C-alpha cells in the first residue's frame, strides 16, 4: 500500500514537472537587451507608463553591389548583424564560417536577413566585399556586406553593443568582438552570441527560431 502511494506520488510529481517545463517552453520569449527608459503616455485620458527599449538607430551604408543599404531595408525583418574585415586573420573566418551555416539554413526564406559591417574602412571597398561574399558562398542579396566611414561604422557598432577599434597591435590592425547580434522586427537587440563558439552558434539557431514565432 505504501509502495502504491509512493508510485502515485512520484507519478504526480513527474506529471507536474512535465507540465511546468512544457509551459515554459511554450511561452519562452527572448530578453530585450540594452538601456531602457520609462515614458509616460496618455491613453484614453489616463497617464500610463510605458517602456522605451534600445533600438538600432537609422543608418546608411554602401553594400557589396555599391547600393546604399539603410535601416529601411530591415523594417519589419529579423536580421543578424556582425563586424568583420576581409583580410582578418584571427576570429573572422570562424565567425563567418558559422554565420554561413545559419545563412544556408535561411537564405531562401524572406524572414531572416544578414548584415556584416566591415571595420576596415580603408581597404574593404564594395568590390573587395563583393569578391569576399562570392568566395564565401553567398549567392543572393539576403546577406549584405557593408562599408562606411569610420565614424559611422564604429558608431553603429556601439549601438549593437559590439566593441570595435583600430589597433596596430591587434592581428590585421583592428580589434573587435565576434558577436552575432540578433535583431527583431522592431530593431531591438534580442541576443548576442559568440560567433567563434559552436555551442553559442547552436543557441543562436535555437533562439532565432523562437524569435520567428513571435508576432
Amino acid at each position, binding site marked *: 500500500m505504501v509502495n502504491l502511494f509512493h508510485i502515485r506520488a512520484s507519478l504526480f510529481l513527474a506529471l507536474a514537472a512535465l507540465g511546468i517545463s512544457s509551459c515554459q517552453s511554450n511561452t519562452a520569449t527572448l530578453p530585450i537587451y540594452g538601456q531602457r527608459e520609462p515614458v509616460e503616455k496618455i491613453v484614453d485620458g489616463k497617464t500610463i507608463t510605458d517602456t522605451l527599449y534600445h533600438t538600432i538607430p537609422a543608418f546608411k551604408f554602401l553594400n557589396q553591389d555599391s547600393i546604399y543599404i539603410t535601416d529601411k531595408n530591415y523594417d519589419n525583418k529579423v536580421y543578424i548583424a556582425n563586424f568583420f574585415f576581409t583580410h582578418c586573420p584571427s576570429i573572422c*573566418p570562424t565567425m563567418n564560417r558559422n554565420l554561413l551555416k545559419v545563412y544556408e539554413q535561411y537564405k531562401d526564406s524572406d524572414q531572416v536577413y544578414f548584415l556584416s559591417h566591415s571595420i576596415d574602412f580603408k581597404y574593404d571597398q564594395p568590390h573587395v566585399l563583393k569578391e569576399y561574399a*562570392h*568566395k*564565401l558562398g553567398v549567392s543572393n542579396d539576403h546577406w549584405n556586406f557593408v562599408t562606411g566611414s569610420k565614424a559611422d561604422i564604429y558608431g553603429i557598432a556601439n549601438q549593437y553593443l559590439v566593441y570595435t577599434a583600430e589597433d596596430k597591435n591587434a592581428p590585421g590592425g583592428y580589434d573587435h568582438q565576434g558577436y552575432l547580434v540578433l535583431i527583431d522586427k522592431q530593431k531591438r537587440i534580442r541576443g548576442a552570441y559568440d560567433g567563434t563558439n559552436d555551442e553559442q552558434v547552436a543557441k543562436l539557431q535555437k533562439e532565432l527560431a523562437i524569435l520567428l514565432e513571435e508576432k
Partner: protein
Amino acid sequence: MTKIFFLGILVSIYFLSAMSSCQSGEDIKTAQYAVNGQKIYINHCKNCHGEKGEGLGLLYPPLTDVDFLTKNRERLSCIIRNGLNEEITVAGKTFHTIMPANETLTDIDIAYVLTYITTNFGKQDKIFSLEEVQQDLINCK
C-alpha cells in the same frame, strides 16, 4: 619478493601493450608529432582552414587534397613559414587569398603541424622529420 613480482607485472604489461598496438618506433614518433601538431594547428591554422581541414568556400583552400600535398611536399614548410600570395589550384578549385607568414613557428613546430596535416587530412603515414623541414626551408624561394 613482492617487488620482483610487481616489476614482473609491469614488464609484462609493457610487452603486452607493445604487442597489441603493433607499432614500430617510427610509428610512435609520427603519432607524437601529430599530437603536438594538432595543438599548433588549432592555434594557427584552424580559423581559416577549418577544424577538419575542409577550408572555406573559395576563400581558404582545403588541406585534404592528397594530390596537392604530395606534389608540393617540398614547398609546404616554406608556405607555412613565409605565407603565400599566388594563385593555386587545390581540389579542382582556384584560390588566391593571401596567407600570412607564421614567423613565430620554429622548425620543429612546422614538422609537428605538417605531420598532423598530412597524416590526418592527407591520409598519409610518413612523418615530416625536423631534418626534412630544415632542408626544405633552405630551399625557400
